[in-house]
């Protein structure tokens, strides 16, 4: 296998090197890629969409259709991971372990046994290790700021590097950070599985639904200028707002899918303590 791999890699590499001879030199301003479509984008974006960040405009408007499917790709991945890993039929261990948070006392409850009614107990696995106080505290402090920054990244995507994907990933990371610094159960308490899964769909639905709304308003799919009549702005600004709407949808979808994938992969679909 090693030799085959080497031969294949060398053959393909040789073909690519051979082909590279005809490529324009690096950073050549006269290359076809830089002279054919990109000038239009650079010079007309402001007029046509009123969005200074050209990447955002191209991403969510000129090629918004790609981006919708990009969101769908990540959604599909989340769904596929869920389908593959999630096990509902959890074989209950004979005894469950609970920890009294205030005192640190661990209780072992036999099958059929009941806990005293109190909120101070948390379920733990048999392999439970205590959380590190420093990590736990620092993360708790950091997470709100991380999330705040993520919202900024989503909202400010029109004017600076950023947008739904980036912001969504940061948001998702904040919850994942919670899961890493404490355990999966804590994170799932904050962001229940069902809510998370539903929000995934809702995020993509916001994007696709916006497109479908344009279609219902009489223009082509994803032609945000159709939203002008709904948003009471001119058609150029409508495009700008349309981009914002779909970026929000992307943000939600990406955040939730990241969390979803993490939850399933880290716990092998069992949603126990996790890593």
């Amino acid at each position, binding site marked *: 296998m090693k030799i085959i791999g080497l031969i294949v890699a060398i053959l393909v590499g040789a073909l690519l090197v051979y082909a590279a*001879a005809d490529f324009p030199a690096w950073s050549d301003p006269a290359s076809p890629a830089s002279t054919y479509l990109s000038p239009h984008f650079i010079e007309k974006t402001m007029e046509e969409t009123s969005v200074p960040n050209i990447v955002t405009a191209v991403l969510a408007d000129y090629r918004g259709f*790609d981006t919708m499917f*990009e969101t*769908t790709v990540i959604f599909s991945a989340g*769904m596929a991971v869920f*389908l593959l890993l999630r096990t*509902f039929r959890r074989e209950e261990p004979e005894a469950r372990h609970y920890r009294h948070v205030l005192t640190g006392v661990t209780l072992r409850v036999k099958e059929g046994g009941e806990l005293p009614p109190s909120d101070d107990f948390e379920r733990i696995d048999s392999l439970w290790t205590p959380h590190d106080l420093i990590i736990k505290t620092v993360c708790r402090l950091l997470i709100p700021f991380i999330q705040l920054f993520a919202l900024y990244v989503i909202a400010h995507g029109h004017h600076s590097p950023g947008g739904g994907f980036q912001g969504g990933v940061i948001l998702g990371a904040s919850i994942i950070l919670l899961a890493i610094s404490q355990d999966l159960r804590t994170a799932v308490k904050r962001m229940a599985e069902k809510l998370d899964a539903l929000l995934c769909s809702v995020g993509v639905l916001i994007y696709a639904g916006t497109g479908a709304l344009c279609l219902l308003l009489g223009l*082509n*799919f994803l032609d945000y200028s159709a939203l002008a009549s709904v948003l009471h702005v001119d058609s150029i600004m409508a495009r700008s707002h349309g981009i914002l709407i779909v970026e929000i949808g992307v943000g939600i979808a990406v955040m939730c899918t990241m969390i979803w994938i993490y939850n399933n992969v880290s716990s092998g679909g069992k949603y126990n303590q996790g890593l």
Partner: protein
Amino acid sequence: MSLQYPALIVVVPLLSALVISIAGWVNKRWCFPITVAALAVAAYSSVGLLFRVLDEGVIVYKLGGWDPPMGIAYYVDHLNGLVLAVVSIVALLNAIASKKSIEQEFPEKIGPFYTLYVLMVTGLLGIVVTGDAFNLYVLLEIAALTGYGLIAMGGGRGPLSALNYLYMGTIGACFYLLGVGYLYIMTGSLNMVDIAGILPDLYQSKAVMAAFIICMVGVWIKMAFFPLHAWLPNAYTHAPSASSSLIAPLVTKVMIYVMIRLILTIFTPEFSFNILAVSKPIVWLSVIAIFMGAILALKERNLKKMLTYIIIAEVGYMVGGAWLGNRVGMTGAILHIANDALMTLCVFLAVGNIVYKVKGAEFEDLQGLFRKMPFTMGAFIIGAISMIGVPPTCGFFSKWYLISGAIQAGHYGFMVALLFSSLVNVVLFFRVFEICFYEPFSDHHGHGHDRHPEPMDEAPVTMLVPLFIVAAILVLVGLYTGDIVNHIIEFAIPKGLV
């Protein structure tokens, strides 16, 4: 509304997939009706679109209202009009037919399963309808990712096969992406028609040639063209019935469509057949593919796996037909996309019924099936006869065009390969029929006075009706071959190709 058909074909399944995923959390019983409704709308739209294309010619749909090549546009011509109709109809019929087996195999995960199912159909339809080379890649990945999930749900070696498929599929898709990148760096455009307009000045460029080769290899991996086929048999065999009868008919065929689209639209026949003198070797490669597919099928003792090797041979048919470099061969290849999708669906649905009842598709499981499941086997016979290539089923007529193309191109090796594969298919299918028919041998040879036949134990009606519809379609498509070729495929091939 008919102006919006191109968008509806893709958007309705997409939106429905999202709704299904929500429904999966709320009430599982809604998933199936939504799936069927969405696929029915898609099928209706794509058939409506096909008829519009027949009336008006190529339809361009600008997504987001942007003119191509700035934005993404859908180009629907006769070629993808036909493939769209086939894909959506196959998906719809299979969704109805596999309801019971999905409920039997994973009762808890109906929601996610249908979500992925519909998303996969979205991806496949999107691949076919799009006119943008990069958009195609994104949809390719949707179809692939959902496919990995659907395949891995099969027990046993399912996950491992799916993982191998994932490696190969990713390499294939990445090669395609790289090829598109090469085209982009040379032309600056991503729109297929636009690229085709710019390319003629660059025909001598090494980079364009490399782009062509890389794209081709990419789609060959994805369609399991011999010798890049290794992932396919296990992946399709170990998939659950509902998945394999969706994936087996459609994925390879859609990839063949992509190859033909690359040959005809992006690179144009002039470049593909005349400037690059690779037709002959590729047809020889497909001859090998057909022979190997047939021979490997012979050694299998599992019905489903045997069929997967037949798929590999069939891929050889279509690649070879497309690369014969003449009009008749190309007609045969395009016709065979439609026909093969339908007949593969037919046999896989039949196998699905068998697995549903008998819980296996090993040859030993098939004994006495003609008694036990006469209706399923009846439809299976029609599918098998079509795969063998017997008139008036559709499989015969695409074979007719392919062989005619081979004769016109003077490529008798390809003709022999096609005939050989037909004969091997006779052996393969009749070996199966023999087991279903003769075994288990009764004690009373000859005149079975005291034979107590096993009672009939057929699959449910919801599984049988779609199967019968497909079987009937096989014959009808065969009888209407003339119309399909004259009114659709004739216009799907550029005039320049004779």
